[in-house]
């Protein structure tokens, strides 16, 4: 579903991402771990075609994201660290707007139901987004991904700054989407969440993917040791 082939991004002499090779299949959640500047967000921005690759290619459903920008974006949903919606619109209006842009026209009732299913409190659905917490906005993001029927989720530190309850609810939502065959690439600092939610984990440092493995292969403690070992080297 998601494939990076020798994906490289350089800014002058600085290499943000070096020859990344990665495949994420349907129903997989690939968690990218790494310190700030490791190349996690660069990877996501390359899949989104927000920035151009220096060499290599990023593919979604076998389509190159640069050559098929519109088609590949129809397949994905993106939730950044701090999902910003239009503050002067309600959660429902935001959802209606973004769904409409993706060509998915659903009734108001269906969208309200999706927002509820995504964990947004009913009395907040028709309130303006400037009254929302970060967790609430992330839930609108998940509702959007569901409404669009996205096959791919690109998440850039989505649980950063969320309280444990909201973070747990978010993980539950990801797992429910995984069950539906959604392929997810998530950049995160949260080792616990990566181990708990991810099917696969990759550790990045200075633009390189140093290691990748199935999350079942390691215990949380081993993951922590492995991560710290790479960070200290």
């Amino acid at each position: 579903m998601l494939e990076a082939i020798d994906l490289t991004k350089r800014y002058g002499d600085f290499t943000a991402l070096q020859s990344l090779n990665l495949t994420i299949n349907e129903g997989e959640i690939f968690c990218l771990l790494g310190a700030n500047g490791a190349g996690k967000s660069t990877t996501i921005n390359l899949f989104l075609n927000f920035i151009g690759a220096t060499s290599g290619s990023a593919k979604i459903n076998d389509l190159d994201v640069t050559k098929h920008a519109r088609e590949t974006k129809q397949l994905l949903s993106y939730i950044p660290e701090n999902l910003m919606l239009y503050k002067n619109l309600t959660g429902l209006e935001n959802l209606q707007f973004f769904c409409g842009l993706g060509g998915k026209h659903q009734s108001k009732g269906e969208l309200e139901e999706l927002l509820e299913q995504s964990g947004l409190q009913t009395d907040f659905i028709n309130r303006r987004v400037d009254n929302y917490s970060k967790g609430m906005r992330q839930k609108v993001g998940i509702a959007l991904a569901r409404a669009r029927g996205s096959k791919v989720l690109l998440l850039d530190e989505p649980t950063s700054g969320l309280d444990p309850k909201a973070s747990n609810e978010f993980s539950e939502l990801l797992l429910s989407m995984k069950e539906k065959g959604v392929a997810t690439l998530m950049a995160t600092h949260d080792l616990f969440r990566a181990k708990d939610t991810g099917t696969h984990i990759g550790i990045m440092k200075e633009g390189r993917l140093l290691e990748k493995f199935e999350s079942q292969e390691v215990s949380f403690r081993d993951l922590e040791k492995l991560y710290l070992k790479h960070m200290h080297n």
Partner: protein
Amino acid sequence: MNSVFLIAKKEILIALRQKVIRALAIVIMVLLSVALYAGYVAYDQQKEVIENARKEKREEWLTQGDKHPHIAAHYGTFIFKPKTILSLFDFGLDTFTGTSVYLEAHYQHEFMFRPAQDHSSMIRFGELSAALVLQILVPLLLIFLAFPAFTKERESGTLKLLISQGVSCTTIVWGKIVAYLSILLSILAPFFVIAFILSTMLANSETIPDIAVRVVLLVIIYVVYLLIFVAFSVWVSMRSSTSKNALLTLLTCWILFMIIIPKTTANFGESMYPLPSMKIYREAIQKDIKSGLDGKASTSFRQNQLKKEYLQQYAVDSIHKLPLNFEGVRMQAGEDYGNKVYDVHWARLKKIFDNQNRIASLSSFITPYLAIRNLSMGLTATDLYTSIHFQKKTENYRRELVRKMNNDMAQNSRYGEFYEYKAGKNLWNSIKEFEYTTMSVYEIVSLYKTELISLCCWAVLIFSLLGYSSRKIRPVYE
């Protein structure tokens, strides 16, 4: 296309929920209403004053009693410039060009009763007309509306979310332009409808088609002008790193376009092609009348030549024996020569005006404000060309009036007979009342081709820049 309308709908909804935008829209509507009402009141009052004065002066001319035709020619009459209906929308130069002129033999008098004379020096900054609001203040509203079009999306992170939905930047650009234009038209549409209804109510049935064409053209050029500002604001927002930078850039451009460039080009035009003072202009005419255009044919020389010609033509040895009053012939010949001299000097003056106007027209390629200002004045018949056109018609009327007086004197009186001969009502009635029809729309448009082309060039340039930049834009800086 659907995405364009979705984005437009979202933008409109957001704008409507912003107090600042609502307040600005109300301010613009109030200003337009006040300006239109003030224009209507000024039009109505001046029309009544002019109409009463016209009737009074015509009556005075017709009932002046029996007198010598040349005395009547000096008694003269007043001509009043009719207020054009669309001047309630754009006062143009009417405030400065004067509303009436005194016509008499030998002299081309200046226009009198300039409304600007009754105002304080603040009039130099412009009167509050609907045109002023549309030309200067509405672009300012657009700047406040559109400056964060892209920067805010980028700053808040919504641009990433928008583009991740598969929407192209071109679609976003068009969505925003459609939104801002819709907001603008919803503010302006009622105003244009009221202005049109008011104009047709005040017009007589013959002039309604002409007014309708002018109003339609005004609507088109104003929409294009404001569209240029919408697109320009969106483009600047797209190219700016922050909302603050976008606002500062746009406000700087507004000051340049509306104040600095128009003033600078006007000063440049004046210094490149300076006008002579009225005193010098008048003295030069009098000198050429006295000494002749070539400096050789003085008044007495010309009169002697004329006398010789007439004596030869009628084969007589004395002007007393001529079958007509030579004094009338001499006066008309003097009048004709004076007109010839005036035409030469006026042509020189007109050339200076034309050169200054050419600079003003070409300057519309530097600021679209000059293009709309000139076009708007032209279509509302409050511009310099209309003023000159009216002046030319009044001068022709004056010449015809004086010619008839002199001819009557020549035909019906005898040489040496002056106070003894008196003309009456029949002669005064033979002078038809002055009627003025403004230039046709076609004539006006052909005079402002440069402005029309420049407005089109501005539109093409801004949309090309938008097209180019929207293909280059990325939601994150690389």
